[in-house]
């Protein structure tokens, strides 16, 4: 494993997940991460990014104004990922939709995705920093 850093700027578009997948593979290869870790990281980021894109915007705001930044770093046997977005104050670890409005599959899956993130990552910290949501995740590698 080599100390490595990378950043990705994402638009508010689910197809950006393809770019994330490719970016993670490349970063993982450069940083010497196992395929398993890269896959788990991808899963966590997919969950968080889709939550931000689906639930992180105020009503009436131009969807194209939502910008998301991803920072990845591997150093001292740890992988640190930071997701920053300029959406409304919103913790992407908390599903944006009220449970009672969802059919049972959505409710179960809403909680499921976040459960997976909590199980796969070791540290999860959400903070609001000015007009940004900042989610920091850490995992030993």
């Amino acid at each position, binding site marked *: 494993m080599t100390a490595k850093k990378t950043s990705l700027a994402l638009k508010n578009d689910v197809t950006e997940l393809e770019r994330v*997948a490719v970016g993670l593979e490349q970063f993982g290869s450069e940083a010497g991460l196992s395929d398993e870790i890269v896959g*788990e990281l991808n*899963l966590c980021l997919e969950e968080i990014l889709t939550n931000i894109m689906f639930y992180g915007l105020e009503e009436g705001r131009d969807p194209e104004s939502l910008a998301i930044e991803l920072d990845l770093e591997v150093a001292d046997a740890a992988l640190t990922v930071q997701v920053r977005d300029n959406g409304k104050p919103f913790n992407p670890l908390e599903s944006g939709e009220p449970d009672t409005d969802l059919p049972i*599959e959505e409710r179960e*899956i809403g909680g499921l995705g976040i459960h997976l993130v909590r199980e796969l990552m070791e540290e999860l910290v959400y903070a609001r920093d000015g007009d940004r949501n900042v989610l920091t995740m850490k995992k030993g590698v």
Partner: protein
Amino acid sequence: MDISEEKTDGVMAVGLKGRLDALSAKAVEEKLLRMITAGETRMVIDLGEVGYISSIGLRVLLIAAKRLKAAKGQIAICAMQPPIKKVFEIAGFTALFKIFPTREEAVKALS
């Protein structure tokens, strides 16, 4: 995502190839639900060539399982690669599905 189908002894085996994620989930869901609506009651989902599954992918399988259950049908999953199996376990899905190492065993169990 490539989807293949193979019917044997009244059991429909659906082979998925690629990533089961937010981008492919809808197409897979539509395909599976179409099959169930068309009358398939015994289905095997072959994940042998699926290298990645996210919570949205798991949702599709859950929806298919519930739809089949409502139709008094059966569903089985087979050939999961280790990383997929790990996600299934963390998600608690191993309790919801019959799971087999190979398609042959899954089809045999359902036929």
